[in-house]
């Protein structure tokens, strides 16, 4: 069973629009990471936000973290067709074990 829940499950937007994906988790965490996966390929790390951070930017990516609500969001601004992929959040426990938990992912389709 997977801890992370992501919504929406699928998102279809036009090129140039912004895409927002949300992730919720259940336990205390050290950090939260977002990954991208193109069809049939391995995951690529996008951004890591630590539990004591509230917001982080990287290029067109903006991630927020609300530890009181146990949730995070990933915003992709000015989307491009090449952003079409599945996006996953991943968390590791603050204490005990090394189990990284991935959500089921949001499938983003950006139409040119």
């Amino acid at each position, binding site marked *: 069973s997977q801890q*992370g829940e992501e919504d929406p499950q699928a998102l279809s937007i036009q090129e140039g629009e912004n895409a927002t994906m949300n992730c919720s988790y259940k336990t205390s965490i050290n*950090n939260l990471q977002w990954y991208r996966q193109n069809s049939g390929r391995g*995951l690529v*790390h996008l951004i890591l936000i630590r539990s004591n951070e509230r917001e982080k930017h990287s290029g067109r990516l903006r991630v927020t973290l609300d530890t009181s609500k146990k949730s995070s969001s990933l915003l992709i601004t000015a989307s491009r067709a090449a952003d079409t992929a599945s996006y*996953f959040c*991943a968390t590791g426990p603050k204490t005990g074990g*090394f189990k990284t938990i*991935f*959500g089921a992912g949001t499938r983003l389709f950006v139409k040119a």
Partner: protein
Amino acid sequence: GAGVSQSPRYKVAKRGQDVALRCDPISGHVSLFWYQQALGQGPEFLTYFQNEAQLDKSGLPSDRFFAERPEGSVSTLKIQRTQQEDSAVYLCASSLSVRQETQYFGPGTRLLVL
């Protein structure tokens, strides 16, 4: 430098066969993770190595699954007596430090059990 590599990329096995999946992590990376990814789902954690020590195997679904990393670099995931429900993509990831930092993923091995 080279990324994480996995072999084979595709494996077809008959039910009951044993399979061995190989992962070559990035050189010098201490941590190594194995995941199982079913179609349309996120990766599910299987096991974690810190150098040669297997510190977490809580995600291995049954005693048919076995992983090793004897010299702290290359790792092998072995599945004995494969079942159809074992069909999935098996992903390997490595990270530089001890825990919970950026993971670098290999392309995965797609296993199909007939």
